[in-house]
């Protein structure tokens, strides 16, 4: 059986190596046919697509004429790509400025029209007078220069007016033809990479799907499955956890960290470099939503796979503990159904992408303008989603926390929690139990909550008033900062990438604003507590060691006190690893929730204990 486990490991590692190798394989080439089919979705009709495609081909040729370096691998290709797009966009604007932009003659006639005896008079009437029936040109100026109207500001002389107008016109001419521009956003770069690459992932997708995901899944199922025999009888099996370099912050842990961090950095910031990996799941994505995969679909797919194979490990490790079995099953269901499949199916039926269980402020972009608008534009269902999201946060979340503690979300429903409790379970002992870590936790998590509330408030202010700033704060800028610092770096790169060093709940403990919100409810108004069983504690420390949230459970248990802490996510592992049957997660009346308050522990009849 141990040999079979080794085989499983080898198969798994082979899959990982091929997964990484796949990313860098294949030939990257700016090929005319591929460019045409990528940008021109309707080749039979002469339309915008044809123009973009041929413009891009021209830009490629211009680039190649001045750069002798080849663009045939992932690195050189992506070095050239933004430059070629720049060139293309520049060409488009240059070409169209003459016909669709404002010529110097146009500017001159506007200036002379405005230069009247009474001084500079600038208004829609003046514009119409100067540019006559060319509605496009009129519209450009009316839309973009109304702040220069006479009733808005004064000009000292013609020269000032002319230079102000000219610089605005230059700006407008530069953005002429945006509908023919190619985006340099990450999604666009990824799409172009996917289109241009010639690789196994593209031509033999299912084969490579098997060689990567297939081997990884088969290998880890064997590796985890053999534990059923190897671990022996059901029970707590933590033997050797602090002897293994994978789980005691040894060299294996650091390698895993590098892999995870690298993956998150690529995913969030450089998705164009993982085009081959995204290609692998194109068929799955097309089966679900009808669209090719984005890097986020790849992420969702990997997320579900990781949770599923590690759930097998949980089922075996905790097969004597039905709380763990039920919890693992439910959290896995919510991830696969609610976070992964249902949103994709909604898209398939032309409905908004929506994860019904993802509550603001964890779902920090819920109140972003584009999201609200897309929901409102989608009729009854969209409105329902909007209302549901608000009810979820304001009513359902606190009521459920009152009855069951925040565990109902963090350990039973949440995707972040789900990954932490499956993929992250081997690392739970690494959370810091020191007092300073608890202090840091309280500063950090409530700061993030405040940040999320302010950021959302500003974004909503913009949504309702149309004004882009409040008290001098650019609302768009602050939402971007939040998304980068909290949404990407904290929750992803550090939260998950650092599993092998900081433990599996770093994000949930130090960063999640929803956890902070629920924590306040749990601490002050909830029926949930971990009951300490009288005087049975022997201070061994298993509970504290295996608390993923870094709670020093023992500090309470050895005094006979119940554990009522805002950060507890109710995973139930402290209760599971206790060798003396001391801890039990319970919901009950709020009265006496903290249990024994005195320093004396049950068993000593010299004292009257708080009952």
């Amino acid at each position, binding site marked *: 059986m141990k040999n079979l486990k080794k085989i499983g490991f080898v198969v798994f590692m082979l899959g990982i190596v091929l997964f990484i190798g796949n990313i860098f394989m294949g030939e990257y080439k700016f090929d005319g046919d591929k460019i045409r089919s990528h940008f021109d979705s309707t080749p039979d009709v002469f339309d915008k697509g044809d123009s973009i495609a041929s413009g891009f081909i021209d830009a490629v040729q211009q680039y190649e004429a001045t750069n002798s370096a080849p663009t045939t691998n992932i690195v050189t290709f992506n070095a050239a790509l933004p430059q070629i797009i720049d060139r293309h966009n520049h060409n488009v604007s240059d070409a169209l400025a003459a016909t669709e932009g404002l010529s110097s003659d146009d500017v001159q006639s506007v200036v002379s029209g405005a230069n009247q005896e009474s001084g500079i008079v600038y208004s829609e009437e003046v514009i119409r007078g100067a540019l006559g029936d060319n509605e496009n040109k009129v519209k450009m100026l009316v839309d973009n220069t109304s702040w220069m109207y006479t009733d808005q500001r004064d000009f000292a002389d013609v020269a000032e007016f002319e230079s102000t107008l000219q610089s605005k016109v230059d700006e407008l001419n530069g953005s002429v033809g945006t509908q023919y521009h190619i985006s340099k956003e990450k999604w666009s770069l990824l799409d172009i990479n996917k289109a241009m690459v010639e690789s196994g992932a593209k031509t033999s997708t299912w084969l490579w799907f098997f060689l990567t995901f297939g081997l990884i899944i088969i290998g880890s199922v064997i590796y985890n499955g053999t534990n059923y025999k190897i671990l022996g009888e059901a029970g707590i099996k933590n033997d050797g956890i602090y002897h293994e370099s994978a789980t005691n912050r040894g060299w294996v842990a650091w390698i895993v960290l590098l892999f995870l961090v690298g993956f998150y950095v690529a995913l969030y910031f450089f998705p164009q470099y993982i085009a081959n990996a995204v290609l692998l799941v194109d068929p799955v994505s097309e089966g679900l939503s009808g669209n090719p995969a984005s890097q986020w679909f790849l992420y969702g797919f990997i997320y579900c796979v990781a949770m599923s194979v590690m759930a097998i490990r949980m089922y075996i490790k905790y097969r004597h503990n039905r709380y763990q079995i039920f919890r693992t099953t439910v959290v896995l269901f919510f991830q696969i159904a609610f976070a992964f499949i249902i949103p994709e199916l909604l898209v398939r039926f032309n409905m908004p992408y929506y994860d019904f269980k993802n509550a603001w402020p964890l779902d920090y972009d819920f109140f972003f303008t584009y999201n609200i608008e897309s929901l409102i534009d989608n009729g009854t269902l969209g409105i329902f989603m909007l209302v549901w999201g608000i009810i979820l946060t304001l009513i359902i979340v606190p009521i459920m926390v009152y009855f069951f503690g925040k565990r109902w979300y963090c350990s039973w429903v949440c995707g972040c929690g789900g990954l932490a409790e499956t993929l992250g379970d081997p690392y739970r002992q690494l959370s810091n139990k020191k007092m300073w870590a608890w202090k840091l936790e309280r500063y950090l998590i409530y700061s993030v909550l405040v940040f999320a509330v302010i950021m959302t408030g500003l974004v909503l202010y913009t949504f309702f008033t149309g004004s882009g700033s409040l008290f001098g704060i650019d609302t768009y800028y602050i939402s971007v900062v939040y998304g980068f610092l909290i949404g990407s770096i904290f929750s992803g790169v550090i939260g998950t990438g650092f599993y092998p060093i900081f433990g599996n709940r770093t994000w949930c403990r130090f960063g999640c604003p929803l956890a902070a919100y629920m924590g306040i409810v749990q601490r002050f108004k909830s029926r949930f507590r971990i009951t300490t069983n009288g005087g049975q504690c022997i201070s061994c420390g298993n509970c504290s060691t295996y608390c993923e949230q870094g709670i020093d459970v023992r500090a309470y248990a050895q005094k006979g006190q119940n554990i009522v802490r805002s950060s507890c996510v109710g995973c139930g592992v402290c209760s599971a690893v206790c060798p003396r*049957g001391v801890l039990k997660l319970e919901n009950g009346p709020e009265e006496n929730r903290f249990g024994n308050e005195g320093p004396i522990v049950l068993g000593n009849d010299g004292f009257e204990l708080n009952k």
Partner: protein
Amino acid sequence: MSKIVIIGNGISGVTAARHIRKNSDNEIVIISAESEHFFSRTALMYVFMGHMRFQDIKPYEDYFWEKNRIDLVFDYVNHIDTDSKILEMKGGSKITYDKLVLAVGSKPNKFGWPGQDLPGVQGLYTYQDLETIEENAKTAKHAVIVGGGLIGIELAEMMHSRGIETTFLVRESKFWRSVLPEEDGDLITRHIIDHKVDLRLNTELTEIIAGDDGRVKAVKTSEGDIVECQIVGLTAGVSPNVEFVKASKIEVDRGIKVNEFCETNIQDVYAIGDCAQFNESINGRRTIEQVWYTGRIMGETVAQTICGNKMPYNPGPWFNSAKFFDIEYQTYGLVLANREENENSFFWEHPKGKISVHVVWDKASGEFIGINTFGIRMRHDIFDKWLKEKVSVDVVMSELRSANFDPEFYRTYEKEIVDQFNSKTGRNVELKAKQWWRNLLAK
């Protein structure tokens, strides 16, 4: 303000220090030759098995002691001079005290076996024992454990975790039969064998044999068998660690003799925990109690006396717990190894043989006396109350659902247990629905 010196930083000494600090501004010094800081002795096994690091079994962070003004001295006391209230230390210094608390614990029993001091032969009690066994385990392929009690089975589990084959010599007919009733001992005995431990019942150690390198090579059993081994674990109980006290004027029998206030024969000298021996049995208990919980209770109590609130040792109803490989054990009240004349008992076992309940009550009055559970957790508070109130066994059986402390969603067996209880005993207990257990306490 006086200076309280505590010798020993185990659970008794540290509990005493904490409570003296809570109740007074006295100067507190804890002396230990074993470790700089307090650790949980019962958790040493988990460090060896890799569940935790040593730092994880220290219940308080290192800053705790300074913050609470508890001075720690890492040294050994050679002699106690009670006339001038001075401790002579191995390091050469002298420490004065106003009040002295002896919380010096126990040491493993050795019964004069030939070869009992050979390299490779050891107990499992101190931090140093942990270091020794780490060293011994590096090259060991086979271990022999002598003595079928709690530390013996811990050692067996430790060896099992490292894949070291183990022979386990148990003098009695079943594991821990001196404490557990026949059926209970049988359940754990089977569980030990399931873990591929070579369990030899009714077998004693006669000799430990040295190899050419002077280390242990094998043991000889009372059956005449020779078992080759590289580690011998001696776990045949512990006795008070009082050798160094004998040269002082403090009265010592098997342990340090104390009255109900944990006072020795010498003014201002107290003894608590494993090392203390009460002059008379208190609350029907043995005069020497070597359990974590009793050490803690004595520590809580002596702190009161030292701080001026003179308080006798008054432990509540007996309770204990342990874990044998994968099976948890809890006991409340007194379930004796062999039933007394006046006692009736009922034993229920799950068909798979890993879960059981053993209940004892008084034949005549029906008063509940005690319960052993294996694989089922029970609430200490409720049993403490039932035992104090001397409720009938029928009350206990009818409220089993509320007394259960297993994690949520666990399968429970109260129905089966009570049905069988009724049919076997002819009693007629009606199993009540689960209610919030604190309501039961309030009644």
